[in-house]
């Protein structure tokens, strides 16, 4: 399939939507809104997976879509909200890098992603190339979010976005084996991260595992 064909356009559209949402995630100033955006992104991801299932008539992709929807559009956002309420975390986004600058950085990353993907010759079909660019951008933006936001929740969200990008890439490639297994395995890790946030009651940052009495340790402070 090439440009101007429905399957490609839809897939492209969905990918673009995810990228857009990644930017929204970077843009939001309130944690609640961020979580909503994350849920939406999860939904779109599920849709993309399903669509690819239709296009490639690969039934296992529907399973992926289902899992993605259940986990990313519903469960995890709810969990995060609950966390937000229970540990009464800051409701406002604390940034290490301001919203404006991080947007600019995000644009730069997207540009980089396109630059990297550009030289890929037409030997690979265009769809893959485009999707790859999108997915790569989402991944990079997710990581950018992890390092420019201070709240633990937002860092978890960044990790989730990163993983969404992975799944997007995975489903985008026609005939990718073990998609379900891999996406599930990746998901398990995400769940464990969220679980870790619960268990260790990480209030503020990843790097202050806040079990009340924990001092900054890092080994050999004399």
């Amino acid at each position, binding site marked *: 399939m090439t440009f101007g064909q429905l399957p490609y356009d839809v897939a492209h559209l969905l990918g673009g939507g995810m990228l857009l949402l990644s930017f929204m995630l970077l843009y939001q100033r309130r944690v609640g809104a961020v979580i909503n955006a994350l849920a939406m992104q999860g939904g779109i991801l599920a849709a993309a997976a399903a669509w690819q299932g239709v296009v490639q008539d690969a039934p296992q992709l529907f399973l992926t879509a289902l899992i993605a929807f259940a986990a990313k559009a519903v469960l995890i956002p709810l969990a995060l909200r609950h966390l937000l309420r229970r540990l009464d975390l800051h409701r406002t986004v604390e940034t290490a890098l301001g919203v404006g600058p991080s947007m600019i950085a995000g644009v730069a990353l997207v540009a980089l992603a396109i630059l990297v993907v550009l030289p*890929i010759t037409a*030997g690979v079909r265009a769809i893959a190339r485009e999707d*790859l660019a999108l997915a790569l951008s989402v991944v990079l933006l997710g990581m950018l979010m992890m390092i420019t936001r201070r709240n633990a929740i937002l860092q978890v969200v960044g990790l989730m976005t990163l993983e969404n990008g*992975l799944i997007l890439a995975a489903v985008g490639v026609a005939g990718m*084996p*073990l998609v379900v297994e891999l996406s599930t395995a990746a998901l398990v890790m995400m769940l464990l991260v969220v679980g870790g946030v619960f268990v260790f009651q990480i209030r503020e940052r990843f790097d202050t595992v806040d079990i009340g009495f924990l001092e900054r340790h890092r*080994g050999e402070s004399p």
Partner: protein
Amino acid sequence: MPAGFPLPWALVFLPWVGALLLVALPRERPAALANIAVSAAGFVLSLLLLWHPGGTQGWTHVDALNLPLVVLSFLVGLTTAVFSLGAIAAERFDLLRLRAYHVAFQVFMGAQALALLADNMGVMWVAIEIATLASVLIVAVHGTPPAIEAAWKLFILCGVGIALALFGTIVLYLAAQPFVGHGDSGLSWTVLHGLAARCDPGVLNLAFVFLLVGYGTKAGLVPLHSWLPDAEAEGPIAISAVLSGLLLNAALHAVLRAKAIVGAHPDAVAPGPFLVAFGLASLGLAAFALWRRRDARRFFAWSSIEHMGLAALAFGLGGATANLAGLLHMLGHSLAKSAVFFGVGHAAQLKGSQKVADIGGLAASHPGLGWALALGIAAVAGLPPFALFASEFLLLVEAAATRWWLILPLGIGLLTAAAAKIHMMQALCLGDPTPDSDDAPPAWTERTTLGPIWLHLGLALALGAALPAPLAALLDAAARIPG
């Protein structure tokens, strides 16, 4: 052994079954003994691999490159199990932690085997993820704040790294996709390796970068290393050996597989220089960071970073000679470093602290342990007649012969690191002994410590100076695989 017998899978599932069994065992000593039994069975099974015809078998693949690594893994697993028989006596685990410890250990061993034996890059990725989760659990098992912070750090950093590695895997498939039909073969390393020359170089480059950063994080290459010192220093005493001896090898092995694929394409960006850069960075940072360590186990964790950097550098140089150096370095480092971790761990338990200031004069107070540890540290410092001397010799000669400008940074790094280790060796082993702690482990634990140490040192010596011809031929064949 019947022809079709899936020996690799047996190697993977034996420990996992053992893990289930260990859940059932409540009491400490039986559990530890069962742990040893399972590990021993695994080791014996892994020895059978030496007679394995090799080649791809479903999702698994046995060749000269991963075979020695697998056998070594199970060997170190066995010795670690023996050592931990004495070590956990002093750890004072409660029931839950004890089970968690043993289960996680066996799960880790199985995942390790799978990660090394997997032919399917996807399966390899899953295996490494499982290994990571297991190691997170083990590191956290103490539940003390430092342990939990170390585990959390390990979890987040390696989690992100692994995610990137997954992306790399996907891109790798994307590269091969035009040439492979649907089905699992698209992720098979052998297939990819064969196809690489026809794949699109751009995609391959992209895939390699992500695999390098992803698995490089697990291999503890600077600047992706931050999790390593804490994880190896805060986990249970016995585990440091496994973490630094095995986990790193598996990760570096994954990087090698990726390098082999990308390197097979003439127009792709040469992967070697990337590895050389990471290797130099690791060597440089670790060599100087060693001088500031006040904590014995952290010191040797940093030296693991240095050695991984050296191995990466060797593989980066490429060519059969340098690859041999790298492989030899990986094997020798696993043996020597785990021996040192046994010794240091036991000393830390004797003295009730792992601060260097509290451990001293071992040669005077515990001659057996002291001199064995001194010898082990000498081996880690690359002094003869152990394997690391041979590998570092080969690496340095090869560097001087092919890329003379590497001599200076390499030489300075090696010298600085070796000097730091000599300082540490004398600080720990010589001089006036420091007092033992009141709840020092019983005397018999010294046997479960010295046995593994001497075994490892003996093997390291054989590896460096007197390797039987077949094994040497095996290493030779292995050295030609990464290209």
